[in-house]
């Protein structure tokens, strides 16, 4: 099959979507200002407590979760196919809709990595976190890995948003909130009871964030790679779930007639 051609064309269509979301100006002065304020706000909580350790913890958690936040927007952009009225045409095309829906929102991984890395590297010196060039490069690479690994989680929410259109904003917000609460952003995962820790371990972003913390905190390379492995293993499971859910949506829509021509 010409999956490569489908992917290439889908990425193009995603790229044109990105140009609706941001212009360089709105990205710099709208989104990036918001991102920096948010990360500063969290880090200040630590400063106010007079705890430099806590400050650095909050800074890294908040900065890395910017990438997580942005990749969750894949949920919204999955439903844009309904806005452009192309859903029925995708369903009728030989290649089907699953590949296109799964790949169309890739740009959030790119922008998420960019804004998250900028926030982390720019604000680290401000809050007393010294990062050498090696650590900085490792952090950016691991932020990218985190964004990539969280993308399938956003897709899963997107598949549910397509299906339950009225609740389309609920899934990604609820998931992001859950991950932020129990995922080691403000307090370590170990703070929670055992069963919540197990639950948190199901999210790739939690492992990604931990890998970043290890890499810039002088952790051993094996430990970093072990976390990275967990991030990608859980991501693979989410990707399978997202593909199944999209496929399920397509099959069910055929039965109920919920995909309209021009809808």
């Amino acid at each position, binding site marked *: *099959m*010409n999956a490569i*051609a*489908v992917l*290439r*064309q*889908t990425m*193009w*269509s995603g790229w*044109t*979507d990105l*140009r*609706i979301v941001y212009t360089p100006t709105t990205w710099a002065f709208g989104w990036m200002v918001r991102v920096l304020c948010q990360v500063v706000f969290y880090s200040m909580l630590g400063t106010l407590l007079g705890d430099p350790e806590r400050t650095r913890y909050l800074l890294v958690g908040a900065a890395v979760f910017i990438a997580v936040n942005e990749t969750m927007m894949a949920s919204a952009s999955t439903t844009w196919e309904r806005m*452009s*009225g*192309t859903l*029925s*045409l*995708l*369903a*009728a*095309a*030989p*290649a089907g809709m699953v590949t*296109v829906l799964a790949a169309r929102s890739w740009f959030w991984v790119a922008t998420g990595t960019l804004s998250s890395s900028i926030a982390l590297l720019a604000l680290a010196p401000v809050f007393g976190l010294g990062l050498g060039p090696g650590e900085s490069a490792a952090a950016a690479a691991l932020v990218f890995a985190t964004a990539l690994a969280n993308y399938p989680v956003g897709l899963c929410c997107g598949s549910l948003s397509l299906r339950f259109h009225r609740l389309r904003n609920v899934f990604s917000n609820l998931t992001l909130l859950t991950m932020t609460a129990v995922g080691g952003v403000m307090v370590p995962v170990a703070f929670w009871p055992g069963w919540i820790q197990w639950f948190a371990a199901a999210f790739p972003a939690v492992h990604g964030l931990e890998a970043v913390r290890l890499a810039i905190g002088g952790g051993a390379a094996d430990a970093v790679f072990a976390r990275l492995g967990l991030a990608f293993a859980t991501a693979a499971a989410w990707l399978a779930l997202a593909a199944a859910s999209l496929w399920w949506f397509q099959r069910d*829509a*055929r*039965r*109920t*007639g919920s*995909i309209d*021509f*021009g*809808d």
Partner: protein
Amino acid sequence: MAPGPGRGDAEAMSITGFDAPAVDVRGRSRDFATARGGPPRRALDDFGLTVAAGEVHGLLGPNGAGKTTLCKILSTVLLPTAGTARVHGLDVVADAKRVRPLLGIVFGGERGLYARMTAAQNLRFWAALYGHRRREGRRRAAELLERVGLGPRADEPVETFSRGMKQRLHLARGLVGDPRVLVLDEPTVGMDPVSAHEFRGLVEDLRAEGRAVLLTTHDMAEAEALCDRVSFIDGGRLLRCEDPRVLGELLSRHERVRASGVPEALAERIAALPGVERVRSTGPGAVLVETGRGGAALPVLRTLVEAGVSDVSTAPPTLEEVYLHLIGERGMAVRP
């Protein structure tokens, strides 16, 4: 690659059943669940139809008749409740995967295109989804854009296009997979007359290439101008399948004359003219004359003009009226 027909072609012929009709629908029904658990609504009721290769088949019906429902079933995006539909002998449910490459889908309106992408990018995208590799996709996109007259605008974003241009791009999109069967669902709805005329020219080319076209419309003049055969559908049921000349004949036979400033006595004289079915009052001094015979409108017009009435116009009958005549409910009240 060896030229000429090889074993592969012969196999493809038998697999896709080129000897079977391009479209063959039998006993097709589709129910939709209604809100609050009421009885299901029947959008298609025991519907049947065939379209041969090289035929433009019109599906004519008012809004809500079930035209789009049939198009969706043929396009494999909606499952029927009962009956079978085949495309070149392949069942649209059981063989959906093999049916899809044979079909091109075009619907009316502004949607179904990626507004931010250029015309060429849109076509390359769909070319990939219809199995073309990069180079082939580029070639097809350029060729089709030329064909629908969008060559000079190929690299402009679709959002800058007029409605007629979008619709031509939509047709090019439908052709990107080189389909044997085209399903056109009210493709000219909302188009200006010039664009609609151009669009019809393109559809005529498709017939000449031996493709089968199923065209839905609620425009009788369009169906008459374009189609080899016309099926009348209403309330999900097939009323009749006719030669479009019958349609032209119906249109002229039931021509209507509208006039105002008509005194009572004159209205009575007109009602007595041969071929006049009914004279209805549509306001003080205003009348609507319905005729039931070809050419009957002419003496009506003459009588009105000779009596000094100057506000006179003729109009073809509405689809509803033609339907009433088709069903044979002559004399039943027509909704104003």
